[in-house]
């Protein structure tokens, strides 16, 4: 966790980020409304409530696509990491826009009637026997509930209280929400929109999200295959390659036979191995840097000391560490994780270990 944590909670970056995101959302809604008004006017005008409802709903789903693409984009190209950094604000914003859409839909289509709107929402469509007439609103409601759960637990307070694992699982539900929303649109708007453009847009969005996730997964898989667990000298010591080829203040990740990824960092004090999984939201520590003597996560900048996996005071986060040794210039890691926060003496580098090494003097 960052040393300056409390001072930077709402940093300048976050404000710029939020301003850009809010500006894009406002631009989306304005453009949607403008086209709707120009296209259908006079006697053929679309009701304002319906136009706004559509603008909000489609804006929310476009933002959801952006959110879903950021993860794999950042894995494929580290320059997208700043967009990942504040993704939760984007998530909360998307939820609020979706909520406005749903409130308008429920108020307008389910209000003014003989039963209360909530009852109408749950009962109005009497025909769930046919696929095409399935009440698509229920799918939207399911997605909205998931988005609510995610938005309301997005603060780090919940991350700590739910445990990183539960929190991560909860937030994986975003894919369930996405699937529900594809149903919401396919069984709703796509049944009444004109032409083929709407299904094509939906298909392109799905293709983009799936394509990026597949590309990122393939890359990850290739990385794992790149390290050959067969080179482990014994059952417990895993070869992590030549120390000299790890740039200074950076890491290489190796994959233990059990699938657990380990980050091997080269820093001023030598070479240390820690779990690759950040205690915050599971960010890939091996893609981080050593800054001010601390391993720094690429996702949100949480920090850990390489020697014991503990966050610098006053923070108390801990990650698992691994025993490490250097044999003939190659790092070897003991694949048995030590309890989080266990001090491990860094392996020292001899002159010969560093022959041809990079990064001397880089990243002080």
């Amino acid at each position, binding site marked *: 966790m*960052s040393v300056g944590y409390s001072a930077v909670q709402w940093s300048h970056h976050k404000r710029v980020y939020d301003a850009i995101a809010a500006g894009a959302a406002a631009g989306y809604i304005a453009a949607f409304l403008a086209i709707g008004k120009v296209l*259908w006017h006079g006697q053929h005008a679309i009701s304002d409530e*319906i136009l706004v409802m559509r603008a909000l709903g489609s804006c929310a789903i*476009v933002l959801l696509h952006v959110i879903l693409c950021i993860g794999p984009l950042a894995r494929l190209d580290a*320059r997208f990491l700043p967009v990942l950094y504040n993704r939760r604000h984007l998530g909360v914003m998307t939820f609020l826009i979706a909520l406005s859409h749903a409130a308008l839909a429920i108020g307008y289509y389910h209000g003014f009637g003989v039963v209360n709107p909530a009852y109408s929402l749950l009962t109005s469509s009497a025909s769930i026997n046919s696929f095409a*007439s399935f009440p698509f609103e229920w799918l939207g409601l399911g997605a909205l509930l998931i988005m609510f759960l995610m938005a309301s637990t997005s603060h780090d307070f919940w991350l700590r209280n739910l445990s990183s694992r539960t929190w991560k699982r909860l937030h994986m539900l975003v894919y369930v929400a996405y699937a529900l929303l594809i149903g919401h649109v396919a069984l709703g708007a796509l049944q009444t929109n*004109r*032409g083929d453009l709407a299904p094509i847009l939906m298909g392109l969005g799905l293709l983009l999200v799936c394509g990026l996730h597949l590309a990122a997964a393939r890359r990850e898989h290739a990385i794992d295959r790149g390290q050959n667990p067969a080179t482990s000298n014994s059952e417990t010591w895993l070869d992590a390659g030549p120390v000299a080829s790890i740039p200074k203040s950076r890491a290489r*990740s190796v994959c233990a036979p059990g699938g657990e990824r380990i980050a091997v960092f080269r820093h001023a004090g030598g070479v240390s191995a820690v779990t690759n999984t950040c205690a915050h939201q599971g960010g890939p520590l091996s893609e981080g840097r050593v800054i001010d003597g601390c391993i720094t996560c690429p996702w949100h900048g949480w920090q850990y000391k390489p020697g014991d996996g503990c966050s610098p005071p006053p923070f108390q986060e801990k990650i698992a560490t691994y025993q490490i040794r250097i044999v003939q210039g*190659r790092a070897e890691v003991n694949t048995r994780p030590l309890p989080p926060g266990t001090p491990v003496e860094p392996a020292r580098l001899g002159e010969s270990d560093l022959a041809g090494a990079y990064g001397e003097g880089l990243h002080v």
Partner: protein
Amino acid sequence: MSDPNSSSPHDPPFDPPFYVGYLPVPAPLRRFLGIAAPLAAGLVIIAALAASVTQRDPGPARWNDGVAQQFRGHLIRWPYPILLVSDDSAKHEASMYLLVEMGKHGAERPKWSRDGVAVFASGWKLDRDGRQMIELEPASDALREDTSIPRLAVSSPVQIGTVTLKGEIVDSKCYLGAMKPGEGKTHKACATLCIKGGIPPVLVTRDASGRLDHILLCSETGEALGSEIWPFIADPVAITGELEVWHGLKRLRVSAGGIHSL
């Protein structure tokens, strides 16, 4: 990360600028984001234009919801309350107005049990393709008896015979302009609520020449329809029943079990 065994110590290491939220953004990253952010925002706007263009024409329906208008005519129930205004403007023919209340409610207020009583009505006109409706003002005297005009001797409708018609069941109020669009799948829940609330159900169909036609739906015995049509609202359906025409208005007395999803 590459294969630890194959990475040659003489390849320059790939060193992308590293971003930490609480530290200044490195210049190359700033440049990248300076291009990527406007590009992404541009894509979002293009998505808005594309999504908006897919919207369908909601139809030529109008809702004059400004100042309430006054109407005089004869009230009939067929079985839904209808105002028959003779000599409407200069057309020298009777105009039919379905009567409804504000919100999703049919006009339950007429206490006159016999057809043909003369009334004043005040409310807002809705119309589409020559079909008309009055949304009554909420005031209790928005529909009151007009004793200056004699009752109308109600003639019998013309029986056309048994027919099967294909189309969509809509709630007449939204369809005639209360909501635009007021038909189709996205409007199904609302249409169901309207019809449950007593808004007259109408079958929108096409006649032999392909022209739009609108047919009021009632039960076999001429009563207002109940829950039997709810599952079919806003879906493509075929309906069998007895077709009748009265003052240019068509209604179908739906046979028991006469509605089928297509």
